């Protein structure tokens, strides 16, 4: 299972890459695999204010439509425009080409609620037991 060391994770299987005040958000390889072939993604609007742990996107696969929750609070900066035409990028490259959006996060203290790679690894292993 691919769990990059430089990212942070949530229990709902979102990942966050933090660069200064900007956070890049997507869903993990584990989540993409569990959902199966992804057919559609509904992204938030640019400038939309997100609240940590509240619904921010919907990802639809051949099996299910699932909610994606904001890992941090803040404002949406830019969307991954590739996903509209190529949602399969999430299955192929969950952490790079398949990212969902970038956001400017407003409360750095919220990072405490996120897991690092080893913790997420342990968490996922616990789920499959």
């Amino acid at each position, binding site marked *: 299972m691919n769990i990059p060391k430089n990212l942070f994770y949530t229990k709902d299987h979102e990942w966050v890459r933090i660069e200064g005040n900007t956070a890049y958000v997507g869903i993990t390889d584990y989540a993409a695999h569990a959902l199966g072939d992804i057919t559609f993604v*509904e992204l938030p609007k640019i400038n939309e204010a997100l609240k940590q742990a509240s619904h921010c996107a919907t990802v*639809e*696969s*051949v*099996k299910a*439509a699932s*909610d994606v929750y904001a890992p941090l609070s803040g404002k949406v900066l830019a969307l991954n425009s590739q996903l509209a035409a190529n949602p399969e990028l999430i299955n192929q490259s969950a952490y790079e080409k398949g990212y969902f959006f970038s956001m400017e996060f407003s409360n750095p203290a919220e990072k405490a609620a996120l897991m690092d790679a080893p913790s997420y690894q342990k968490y996922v292993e616990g789920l499959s037991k």
Partner: protein
Amino acid sequence: MSYIPHTQDDIQQMLSTIGVKSIDQLFKDIPVALRPKSFNLPASSSEFAVTQALSNLASKNATGLVNFVGAGFYDHFIPAAVDALANRSEFYTAYTPYQPECSQGWLQAIYEYQSIICELTGLDVSNASLYDGGTALFEGMMIALRQTGRNKIILDSGVNLIYRTMLYTYTSNLAIEFVEIPVEHGQSSRQELFKHLDDKTAAVIFQNPNFFGAVDDYSDVVEKVHNFGALAIASVYPVSLGMVKTPGEMGFDIATGEGQSLGIPLSFGGPYLGFMAVKNQLLRQMPGRIVGETVDSDGKRGFVLTLQTREQHIRREKATSNICSNEALCALRAAIFVALLGKDGLTELAQHNYQKAEFAKERLSKIKGVQVKRSSPTFNEFTVLLPVDADKLVQQMIAKGFACGFPLGRFYKGMDNYLLIAVTEKRTKAEINLFAECLEEMLCN
């Protein structure tokens, strides 16, 4: 086959599984005072006696009246082929297929139905049907609320009061701001509409022809609605689309309507047929089932249920809508009806309706004291102003063998002397003349 659902053994087994001793104990939380004392069921009778009792009840229906009532539901001819095909046991007995792809015949029928609805409305995609015209309009409104994230709805008062009431009832616990705009001289007041149209508006809802029978071209309005980022919704009468501009041609985003006029008999309480078609970009907000065309592993044409992941059985409380069923058998009837008519046939049917209504207008306007409202073009239904109370006249005309129209005072304040008259292709010249003569006689006395 016995229709006893559970034997005493079944009941005992179920009770012991959940750890309850008796049926009485199962219902002990319901106070005795609230429990029914009796279900008022008569004692059992023979099949013959029951048939006779039901026939007696049925004979109370006034089925022999010459019908000039419309008001949303229309007396159209249904070719025998509709019954013959729709009543085939392969269709008639099949409940919602839970393994839909095993029922390729059903899926193809629904696919054909969807294609017909798209052609009729001039829009991109249709679902597999909804309960009736009112629920379809409600679901259309919900699409607009979800899509825009706004909560204001501008509703034309020319929309059937039954539908408006349904919109209010369904949303009574939601924070939705409704603005009703008045109808002036039979048509929607543009001035009032533009006064209320703003960037908080989720949708503007019209009916075409409206409840008074007036046909309008809303193209100008739709353009302004779009400028504010709102959606335009039309509830339409499908038979009229054989000659009236389609919702697609006027730029509407969502079209809904009552499909009863397409081969479904008039009956109190239905079952009727709600249809819905939307522009492509609203596809994922559309509720209910959608059948799509695909190819199987051998490359042969086949049909599947598609976009189901937003539906209730998968997405539970987060589903696009909690409507989970459709009116497949009624949708099938509509598909057969339209397919039998064909494109030219539908246009011809619409023209018959229009011409007969125009003939009736001419004839009725010759009656002293009757004023036919002519401020707007109409399809097969129109409004007349009478010198007497319309409700009373309707009662009197029943005795003469006519269901002479819908008294508008029932739905609109101050319109007690207005009568809404529908003339379908079934009404003959002789019937229309006789109707006019009876009316003349009644008003002269």
